[in-house]
């Protein structure tokens, strides 16, 4: 099995950022391999040898819009742009990809769009737009979007303060989960067997485990991560590839919470080196977890051993890292 990994890091365009960084993790050491110019690559998604990124801005190619970019990943981890398209809304903040489409959530305007891509990675105009009016008093805005099993799509809507489930092809709404109590949903991750959705609230930082049951979402467990007053709040949740652990990042205090997946018991609390963990991501084999430390311009890596995560590598000089995607290096 390969013990080398490419870590793709999307950055915000501040403090001299050079866009998307490719780091190589080899024998527990991190090194910068490549950079690819990009404006506000605030979220990344890998699908096979393709990397997709949002251009999280107010303008894209002269329009009042953000953008979506598609890249072919070369064997050495460098990127070649294969497609670009306006996202149809400003500040697109999240995206995910299946074998035929890239799904993008636009923060402003609150529209989620599906952009087909062909086998050359060329992006086409949107084939589907999901656009729901917000509830009274709430903004027309979206946050996270992610794939769910059986052709479904999950979208965190700030206009509904809910996780909404749609059919990926038709855009028909199938289900909704509203956490209530003033909770502000932000990010979610799905268990490898597709049976559980872990929905993270930004502030207060709280995790809800939802059973995906016949297209419906049912709360089965929840865990308050901290009672501290938060300014930044929680940022990201990921499930380990073996499905046994859920990891949540809380930006205040640079905290990482490792929870047992079946009952959300907190197994480990880690204070990461650096500041403001904006994203975390596991390697495909679950051996490593990377954290994007937005406030300290660094990326750190933790190794999984004996049921615990421990910091094993750190690399600075990466301005405002905001998003991560990992792959094993091709032999």
């Amino acid at each position, binding site marked *: 099995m390969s013990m080398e990994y490419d870590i793709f890091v999307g950055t915000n*365009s*501040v*403090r*001299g950022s050079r866009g998307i960084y490719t780091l190589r993790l080899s024998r527990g050491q991190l090194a910068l391999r490549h950079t690819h110019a990009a*404006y*506000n690559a605030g979220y990344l998604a890998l699908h096979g040898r393709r990397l997709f990124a949002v*251009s999280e*801005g*107010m*303008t*894209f*190619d*002269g*329009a*009042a819009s953000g953008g979506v970019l598609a890249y072919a990943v070369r064997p050495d981890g460098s990127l070649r742009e294969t497609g670009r398209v306006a996202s149809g*809304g*400003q*500040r697109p903040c999240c995206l995910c990809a299946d074998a035929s489409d890239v799904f993008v959530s636009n923060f*402003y*305007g609150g529209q989620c769009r599906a952009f087909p891509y062909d086998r050359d990675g060329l992006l086409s105009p949107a084939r589907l737009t999901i656009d729901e009016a917000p509830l009274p008093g709430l*903004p027309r805005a979206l946050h996270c979007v992610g794939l769910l099993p059986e052709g479904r799509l999950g979208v965190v809507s700030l206009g509904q303060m809910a996780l909404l489930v749609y059919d990926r092809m038709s855009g028909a709404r199938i289900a909704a989960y509203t956490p209530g109590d003033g909770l502000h949903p932000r990010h979610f991750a799905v268990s490898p067997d597709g049976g559980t959705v872990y929905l993270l609230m930004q502030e207060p930082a709280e995790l809800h485990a939802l059973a995906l049951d016949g297209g419906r979402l049912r709360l089965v467990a929840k865990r308050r991560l901290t009672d501290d007053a938060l*300014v*930044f709040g929680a940022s990201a949740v990921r499930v380990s590839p073996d499905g046994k652990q859920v990891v949540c990042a809380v930006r205040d205090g640079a905290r990482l919470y490792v929870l047992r997946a079946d009952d959300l018991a907190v197994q480990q609390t880690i204070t990461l080196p650096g500041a403001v963990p904006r994203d975390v991501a596991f390697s495909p084999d679950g051996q490593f977890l990377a954290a994007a430390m937005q406030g300290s311009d660094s990326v750190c890596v933790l190794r999984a051993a004996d049921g615990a995560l421990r910091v094993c590598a750190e690399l600075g000089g990466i301005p405002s890292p905001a998003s991560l995607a990992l792959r094993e290096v091709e032999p």
Partner: protein
Amino acid sequence: MTQEKRIARLETRAEAEETMARFARLASCGRGGDIPEALFSRRADASIEYGASGPYIGFPKLSTFFEKDVRPGRFSMLLLSNPAVSIGADGVPRGTWDALGIDLDAGELSSTAPDAQTLPLLTSAAPDGARYRAEWTVQRFLVDFVREDGALRIWHLQVLDYLRAPMDSDFVAFARARWATDGARLDALFTSNRPFAEGVLPENLPQGGSTFHWQYHPDALPPEQ
């Protein structure tokens, strides 16, 4: 209409034009930071929208547009023209101005080194490779005024960012090239030289998406607005 009302309307129109002239003068003499206090409304819904920026609403947010370091080699000038001012039934004006602008930053030619964040905005280069900015801009200003304590103040300002180009290029040739730096430019425009207060998120985002945006493109028709 009585003669008194006609005179009042003419005086209000002149007052609006003088307000915008003061705006242009302060901007061109390194006193842009004084503009909010001197000219803007303190209403909670006072706003600025620039190009595709989306609206920045409220005095602290809109002030970030003006709070900039005065550095050697920076100079900007607004030449306002074509005033079209209408007076509402309540006697409060609104108007539009076209503006030819000059936006200069000596960048790497200055004795003060530019910070890394502004490097992408230096769109010209000297023979020795030193980067700097010397751009023309063509804009339209849309202004709603409000009267507060007897004085006319800017309530909503929207700047339509039609054209910009380095002086050694032209607007048509640069129309596509500018896409690469449009986002960074908007970010820089709403980056204050004052630090963020403690206990608040260190980011300055608009309170919504763009209400209107048009910029020149070789395939674009003129804007309807």
